[in-house]
C-alpha cells in the first residue's frame, strides 16, 4: 500500500504542529494576538466615521432646506420630497419650522412651530428647565423670553397673533419649560405644529433642519443633488458642522491607521523571531532530514507550509477575537453594536498567512542552510 507523496507531506506538517502542543500554542498565540489587534483596529478604523458621526450629531443640524430665491416658504410637499433624498438609515432627525411674530404682554416675540419630537432629535444640545410640551396649548419659551416676561414653567400666558389683514386673535398657553442654548433660540417661543396652525392657519415651512449622519463630502453631494432635482428649494450644508466633523474624523482615522501599521510591524517581528527560534531549536531535526536525503527545497516547503498553516489558524482565531475586541470597544465607547464587515475575516486570515509567510521566509532560508553533518557525534 503506497501513500501519495503529497498526503505524507501534509501528514508531516500536521503532526509537527499537532504533537508539539506548547510550541504550537505560543506561535499561534503570537499570530492570533497580532491578527486580533490588527483586525480589531481595522474594524474600528472603518467604523469610526459611522460611530463618531453619530456623536457629531450632538452638534445639531448639518443640512438646511430653505426656500430658494425670493420665495417665502416651502410647501410641505417640497420638504417631504427633499427629505426622501436623505438615506433613511443615516437620518437622525428632520425638523421643519414655521415662524411668526406674536405678542406677549404687548412685547413682540418670535414663535416657532415644529414637530417637537423631531426637534429633540435634531437639537440634542438644548437644555430645558421644566419639560417639553406634551399636551396641546403648551409652549417651550427661550431663556430670554422668560427673563423679559418673567414667566416660569407652569405659568400661563396669552399669545396675541396678528394676521396679514391686521386681525388679531388671542391664544392661551401654558409654559412647559424654559430653553437654554446660548444662541438665538433663547429668544423664541416653541410650540407644536398643530398649536401653531391653530393660531396662524395652514402654511408652508420657513426652514427645515436635517441632522444626517453622513460625512461632510456626502452631505455636500446630497445638497447639490437636491438643489438640482427640486427647484425652489435651496439645500445648504451647515459647513461649520460638516467640516469640523470631517477634520476630526480624518485625524482620528489617521491615528488608528498609524497604530495599526505599527502593531502589524510588531506582529511581523514577533512572528519572525518565534519562527527563528523554532528553527534554532529544530536544527537537529532539519539536519537529520537532510542526512536522510531531503533536498533544501523540501525543507523550505515543509517549514513554510507549517508557518502558513499557523498563520491561517492564528488569523482565524485572531479575526474572531478581533471582532469581539472591536465589539467591546464599540459597546464601551459608543454604546452601540458594531457592523462587522464579514469580508474582513477572510481578509484577516489571508493577511496573517501572508505576514507569517513573509516573516518565516528568512527562518526557512536559514533552515535550508543547516548542515546535515550536525547529526553526527561530536557536533
Amino acid at each position, binding site marked *: 500500500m503506497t501513500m501519495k507523496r503529497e498526503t505524507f507531506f501534509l501528514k*508531516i506538517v500536521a503532526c*509537527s504542529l499537532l504533537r508539539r502542543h506548547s510550541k504550537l500554542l505560543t506561535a499561534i498565540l503570537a499570530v492570533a494576538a497580532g491578527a486580533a489587534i490588527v483586525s480589531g483596529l481595522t474594524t474600528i478604523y472603518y467604523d469610526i466615521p459611522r460611530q463618531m458621526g453619530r456623536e457629531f450629531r450632538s452638534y445639531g443640524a448639518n443640512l438646511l432646506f430653505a426656500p430658494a430665491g425670493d420665495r417665502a416658504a416651502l410647501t410641505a410637499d417640497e420638504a417631504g420630497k427633499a427629505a426622501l433624498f436623505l438615506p433613511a438609515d443615516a437620518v437622525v432627525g428632520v425638523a421643519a419650522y414655521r415662524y411668526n411674530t406674536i405678542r406677549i404682554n404687548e412685547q413682540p416675540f418670535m414663535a416657532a412651530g415644529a414637530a417637537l419630537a423631531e426637534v429633540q432629535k435634531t437639537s440634542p444640545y438644548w437644555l430645558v428647565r421644566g419639560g417639553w410640551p406634551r399636551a396641546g396649548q403648551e409652549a417651550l419659551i427661550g431663556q430670554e423670553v422668560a427673563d423679559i416676561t418673567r414667566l416660569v414653567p407652569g405659568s400661563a400666558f396669552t399669545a396675541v397673533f396678528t394676521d396679514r389683514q391686521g386681525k388679531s386673535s388671542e391664544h392661551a398657553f401654558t409654559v412647559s419649560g424654559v430653553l437654554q442654548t446660548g444662541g438665538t433660540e433663547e429668544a423664541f417661543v416653541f410650540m407644536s405644529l398643530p398649536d401653531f396652525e391653530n393660531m396662524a392657519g395652514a402654511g408652508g415651512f420657513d426652514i427645515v433642519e436635517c441632522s444626517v449622519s453622513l460625512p461632510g463630502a456626502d452631505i455636500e453631494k446630497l445638497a447639490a443633488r437636491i438643489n438640482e432635482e427640486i427647484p425652489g428649494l435651496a439645500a445648504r450644508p451647515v459647513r461649520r458642522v460638516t467640516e469640523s466633523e470631517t477634520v476630526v474624523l480624518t485625524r482620528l482615522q489617521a491615528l488608528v491607521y498609524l497604530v495599526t501599521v505599527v502593531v502589524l510591524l510588531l506582529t511581523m517581528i514577533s512572528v519572525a523571531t518565534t519562527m527563528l527560534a523554532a528553527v534554532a531549536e529544530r536544527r537537529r*531535526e532539519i539536519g*537529520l*532530514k537532510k*542526512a*536522510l*536525503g531531503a533536498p533544501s527545497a523540501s525543507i523550505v516547503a515543509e517549514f513554510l507550509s507549517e508557518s502558513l498553516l499557523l498563520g491561517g489558524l492564528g488569523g482565524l482565531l485572531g479575526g474572531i477575537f478581533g471582532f469581539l475586541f472591536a465589539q467591546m470597544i464599540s459597546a464601551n465607547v459608543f454604546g452601540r453594536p458594531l457592523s462587522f464587515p464579514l469580508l474582513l475575516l477572510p481578509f484577516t486570515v489571508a493577511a496573517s498567512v501572508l505576514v507569517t509567510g513573509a516573516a518565516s521566509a528568512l527562518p526557512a532560508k536559514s533552515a535550508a542552510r543547516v548542515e546535515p553533518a550536525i547529526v*553526527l*557525534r561530536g557536533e
Partner: protein
Amino acid sequence: MHILEIEGVSKIYGSVKALQNVNLSVRKGEWLAIMGPSGSGKTTMMNIIGCMDKPSSGAVLLDGVDIAKESGGALTAIRRDKIGLIFQQFHLINYLTALENVMVAQYYHSMPDEEEALKALARVGLAERARHLPGQLSGGEQQRVCIARALINYPALILADEPTGNLDEVNEGVVLDIFRKLHREGSTIIVVTHDPEVAREAERVIVLEHGRVAKEVLNKK
C-alpha cells in the same frame, strides 16, 4: 568488487589537517570498523563517506561515482540513494510515530509505503511498537527504529556512528545481533566506534591517528 574506494584523501579546515592522504577500500558485503581517539579524524571521515562533506583533495568513489566532484544537490541525491545512516543519538523526529519515522526516509527517497515500512520494523523486531511515539520507546527500541529507517531504501552502504554509545549492555547485544544478521544477508556496514567490543564484531578494523590510518587489524572468526 569494491563499493567504496578512497584514494589519497586529505581534508584541511583552515590550518587543521583533519585527514592526510588517507587510502581505504571497502568490499561489497564487508563489515568495517573505524576506531580512533577524539580528534583523530573519525568524524571527518564519516562526513566524507556519508556524502555530507567533500575532501580538500583526493577521490572518493562510492559505487563507481566520484563524490568529490559532485555538487551539493547531487550529493544529497547520492546520500539518499546509497547510504543508510545510524546515529548514536538515534535522531528520531519526536512528533512522528516509529512507523512514520521510517516512512520519512521513504518519502525523501521515493514513495512512502506503509506496508514496507512495517516490514522493516518487523525485521528489527518492533512490529507491535510501530504506532508509538519516540518518547514512548526505550533507547534500544529507538535505535532499532533508526536502523529500520536506515535499511528501508536498500542502501549500498550502512554507515553507523557509535550505534551502541547510548545503550545498555542488553540493548547493545540486540543491536549487534541485528548487525550480524544484516552482514549475513550481504549488507556492507561501516561502524565508527570507540568501543573495542563493537569493533571486534567487524571483519576488519582500521585505527585513525592524527588524520592517518595508523593500524589495520583483520578479525578472525
